């Protein structure tokens, strides 16, 4: 099981780098692409924590639908790339990094003080899987699924109504 902590720290590092890249990128489309990488890494993190369904939904909904919404807004608002910064205040960057290091130290001390476990929980594998969710969703909560379908139908019809060229 030595692979699990290794994967966790690898994915965590890449996701933090991608998040910083998203914030630093001057073009909104590059920011969106960095965010896609970040979302994929978070999906991988969910897999290392045995939350398989959430991991798949993270890719389907966030990397799929939410990113489409973001690109939609970027194109709709005609956002241009921000001008390049003339100079970077390295003192502020160093202060930020030191602050994060101190905060993580503090959190580590607090977590070890409360004796919190540092590894993933094993119990969520049963309750959070796609099988158990499907069994609950399509037997006991079948009516709720149909109500959700009506809500999605309303969204489709509303989109068509809003995008119509003229109102007769």
């Amino acid at each position, binding site marked *: 099981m030595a692979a699990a902590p290794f994967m966790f720290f690898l994915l965590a590092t890449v996701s933090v780098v991608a998040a910083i890249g998203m914030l630093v990128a001057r073009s909104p489309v590059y920011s969106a692409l960095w965010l896609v990488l970040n979302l994929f890494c978070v999906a991988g993190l969910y897999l290392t924590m045995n939350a398989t369904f959430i991991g798949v939904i993270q890719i389907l*909904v966030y990397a799929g639908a939410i990113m489409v919404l973001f690109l*939609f807004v970027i194109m709709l608002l005609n956002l241009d790339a921000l001008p390049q910064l003339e100079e970077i205040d390295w003192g502020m960057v160093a202060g930020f990094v030191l602050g994060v290091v101190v905060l993580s130290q503090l959190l580590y001390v607090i977590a070890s003080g409360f004796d919190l476990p540092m590894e993933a929980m094993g119990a969520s594998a049963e309750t959070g899987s796609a099988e158990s969710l*499907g069994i609950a969703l*399509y037997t006991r909560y079948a009516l709720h699924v149909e109500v959700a379908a009506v809500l999605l139908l309303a969204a489709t019809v509303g*989109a068509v109504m809003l995008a119509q060229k003229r109102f007769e």
Partner: protein
Amino acid sequence: MFGDFIPLFIMIALATGLALTLLKAAEIIGPKRPNRIKRTPYESGMDPIGSARERYSVKFYLVAMIFIVFDVEVVFMYPWAVSFHDFIEGGAAFGVMVVVTIFTVILLIGLVYDIKKGGLDFEQ
């Protein structure tokens, strides 16, 4: 439990590595004889004029919105597909099939409405 996903991660690593290796290899091995025409965005094509940030037809946004709706529909269908063997074993396959059929038909109404209204018709 995590061990089940190690092949998945290996496959993602292999796919990413292969793509990066091929791109880098083409850059290193391939001959480079650039000229002004070759380096235009559309080689032998139209010269790019003005900004790319123009106003687009609202139809593109409509396609995006409908994609989001059907993406969420897939989210609902995914647990159904995964647990369908359990339904067959439990004898509930027919009832669950009815539930999913109603779900799909309700969403098909939206698609039919969209097509009838000409929302996906780019010609007009």
